[in-house]
């Protein structure tokens, strides 16, 4: 089912006319109300009035995650706080998360787009949706929730965790749609098996999975184990939250971007030049209807490509491929964003530790485990085992406190961390996803 036939199947030409009008209005407003954008536009020697065609988007400056941090918490808001009815924050962990706000209209737009996403993934108003995305500052839980209500479906706001209770609810309430992260979904499947519950006897038909990288292989595994059709959802709080793009269950081949609200671009991460459809590169988004938190040319750091081919589902909106990687070195560990540089600064602040380290990520039993290997230097090598163990513990605790993620610290011999061309390999990601 297509939730919003008028817009989702609109001829490209009409869509582009609407996009241009909305882009112009967004630039006008951002320039007039957000000092950050005014300065960025001025520095780039561009005025909102210079945007005369969609191609002129190339003239606009980029926005990065660092810009959001620099304007923490509300510096990027384009409306007064009395118009803001909701605040969310990313799982960003450098002590400064990225904060986003929504007006009443933004929340309504989000709900409608999330309803489109759920419908694309196979949901209808007659479905019961088991929503295992986390509720809270994270946009996942509430985003899906409002979309499910907008669609008219029955939503179970089960959130994350308490897995055994989730299985009981699945058995007793008979939900037909599952929304969760793919790794938690596989964990649910395992716990169900342990409890003697067969997913084939549950009523699930479709699952809408996202918020972390996953693969076609994981899709096959989920579809087989849960006996459902699984589709991919994409979103990020900086742009809106879940529901920026969603796969249709008919094709299961890329995620339709809701282009009447967001303009996607692919850029070359080095030259920052716009790339044509079909080229792989970094995904950039401009919001064109958001009130409280418009964002212009936001660099997502996600690597993908845009596919303009017509889709069998009837939607005319361009599709983005499954995200294949990142243009920075960010890791997502159990839903928490981790940059190696953050670990490095923790190590540098820990007495007696040299910042020679390597991060090894594994996925065991569908849970991510981050091991921090730290080379022991002359200065920090104690002859006593308990002092060395204390050092490991201190590092683990400092990382937990600063980044909010539990890691295992392992002291290793100096120069044992592989260096390629003199440059240390900082991250080894062994996750088979």
């Amino acid at each position: 089912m297509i939730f919003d036939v008028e817009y989702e199947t609109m001829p490209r030409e009409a869509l582009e006319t609407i996009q241009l009008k909305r882009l112009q209005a967004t630039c006008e407003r951002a320039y007039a109300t957000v000092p950050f954008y005014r300065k960025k536009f001025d520095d780039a020697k561009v005025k909102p009035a210079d945007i005369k065609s969609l191609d002129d988007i190339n003239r606009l400056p980029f926005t990065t995650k660092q810009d959001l941090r620099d304007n923490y918490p509300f510096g990027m808001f384009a409306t007064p706080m009395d118009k803001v009815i909701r605040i969310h924050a990313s799982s960003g962990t450098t002590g400064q998360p990225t904060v986003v706000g929504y007006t009443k209209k933004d929340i309504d737009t989000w709900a409608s787009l999330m309803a489109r996403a759920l419908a694309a993934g196979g949901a209808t108003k007659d479905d019961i949706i088991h929503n295992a995305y986390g509720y809270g500052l994270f946009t996942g839980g509430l985003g899906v929730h409002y979309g499910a209500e907008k669609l008219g479906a029955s939503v179970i706001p089960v959130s994350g965790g308490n897995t055994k209770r989730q299985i009981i609810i699945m058995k007793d309430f008979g939900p037909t749609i599952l929304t969760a992260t793919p790794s938690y979904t596989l964990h649910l499947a395992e716990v169900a098996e342990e409890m003697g519950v067969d997913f084939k006897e549950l009523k699930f038909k479709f699952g809408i999975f996202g918020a972390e990288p996953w693969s076609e292989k994981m899709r096959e595994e989920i579809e087989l184990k849960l006996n459902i059709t699984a589709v991919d959802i994409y979103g990020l709080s900086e742009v809106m939250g879940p529901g920026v793009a969603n796969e249709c269950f008919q094709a299961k081949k890329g995620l339709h971007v809701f282009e009447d609200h967001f303009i996607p671009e692919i850029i070359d991460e080095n030259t920052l030049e716009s790339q044509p459809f079909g080229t792989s590169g970094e995904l950039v988004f401009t919001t064109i209807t958001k009130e409280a938190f418009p964002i212009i040319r936001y660099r997502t750091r996600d690597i993908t490509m845009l596919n303009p081919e017509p889709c069998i589902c009837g939607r005319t909106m361009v599709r983005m491929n499954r995200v294949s990687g990142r243009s920075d070195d960010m890791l997502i560990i159990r839903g928490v964003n981790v940059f190696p540089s953050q670990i490095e600064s923790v190590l540098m602040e820990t007495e007696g530790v040299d910042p020679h380290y390597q991060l090894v990520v594994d996925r065991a039993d569908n849970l991510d485990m981050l091991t921090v290997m730290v080379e022991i230097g002359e200065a920090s090598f104690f002859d006593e085992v308990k002092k060395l163990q204390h050092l490991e513990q201190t590092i683990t605790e400092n990382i937990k406190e600063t980044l909010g993620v539990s890691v295992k610290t392992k002291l290793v011999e100096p120069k044992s961390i592989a260096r390629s061309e003199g440059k240390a390999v900082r991250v080894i990601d062994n996750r088979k996803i």
Partner: protein
Amino acid sequence: MLVKQISIFLENKSGRIAEVTSVLAEAGINIRTLSLADTTDFGVLRLILSDADEAEKTLKNAGLTVRKTDVVAVEVEDKPGGLNNILDILGKSEVNIEYMYTYVHQAGDNAVMIFKFTDIEKAISRLGQQGINIIDGSTVYDL
């Protein structure tokens, strides 16, 4: 008076101790005794060698993490209660033992134990007062 001990940080990987012993063999340094403290991830190899200073230099050059530590060699009567007597003196004096291990060779009829104390001076003086013989570093290497 004190004995120089060489400690080496080793990851728990096969062949690591052999690497140490081959470096020492090539340098013509004799291992007088050794002890290994280990955890699941790493170990600390402690060695008393025929030439601690030379060994420290050689092992460092071989890229190993080395630390030279002062330990105490104590003569222990080779009969029931011999070790207990010493531990009793230390306990009553509130001297803390970081770790201890046995020396391979004997001093006359007596056994030799290697001790690492938190407070070395206090340990030596209390043991001395009770007539316990501390073996001098230069003597230990040649026992």
